[in-house]
């Protein structure tokens, strides 16, 4: 391996941004939260109505801190 190749190899794997890594690490917890929201939407008509009217407010009021990806999943479930 010449000098340029070694330099390139050492530079090729920079750290992934910590925010990305942390979000991926928290996937199991985020999934559990999402499953809880979806179950409640199916079981609780009032909650479903509130979520249909204003999803983010309804989730906040219920104590769910959903990110954009989870919001998309909930919107898809509501359709």
């Amino acid at each position, binding site marked *: 391996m010449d000098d340029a190749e070694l330099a390139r190899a050492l*530079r*090729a*794997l920079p750290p992934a941004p910590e925010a*990305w890594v942390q979000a*991926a690490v928290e996937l199991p917890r985020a999934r559990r939260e999402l499953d809880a929201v979806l179950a409640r939407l199916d079981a609780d008509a009032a909650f479903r109505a509130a979520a249909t009217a204003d999803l983010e407010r309804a989730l906040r009021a219920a104590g769910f801190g959903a990110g954009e990806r989870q919001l998309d999943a909930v919107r898809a479930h509501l359709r």
Partner: protein
Amino acid sequence: MTDAELVAACRTGDEDAWAQLVRRHARYVSAILRGGYRLGDADAEEVFQEVYERAYTRLESLRDPAALRPWLAQLARRAAVDRLRRNAREDVSDEVADRADAAAAAELERLELALTVRAALAELPEHCREIVDRFFACDESYHVIGAALGIPAGTIASRISRCLAKLRAQLGGRNSAAAGVG
């Protein structure tokens, strides 16, 4: 833990194992998306999450747990191509995807070499691993490294040189071992 052991632990619902799995391969997945497929930051961030979501939901389907890394690479490639197709105009999306795959292939080969070098680096003392990683992978200047590690900036280059000599010896040892096999 080996990758196979990590996968087995994740399959039992062990969230610490999942965290370790994510962290162990994060640089590699990120490099495929940014270095290989040249996704911009916003796309790369979303696709990075998609890759790990797919990995999490499909982990049971991984037939050979020891092949976790190439499996993640495959997920990353597919997710990157899906994103590029989505971003391209419909009439050229196949062309865009094919070009991206071809361009990424060379980079992915270089990443294999990078992983070999990184594995050799992992065998060196911690002070070498840190200083080499900061300069090369993190693109930190001698001044920044010196300030972070509390050592004079003027000594950083020679310290790195000594660590690189150890790294070459480690890589040379790996080559000899490989040559002796089979």
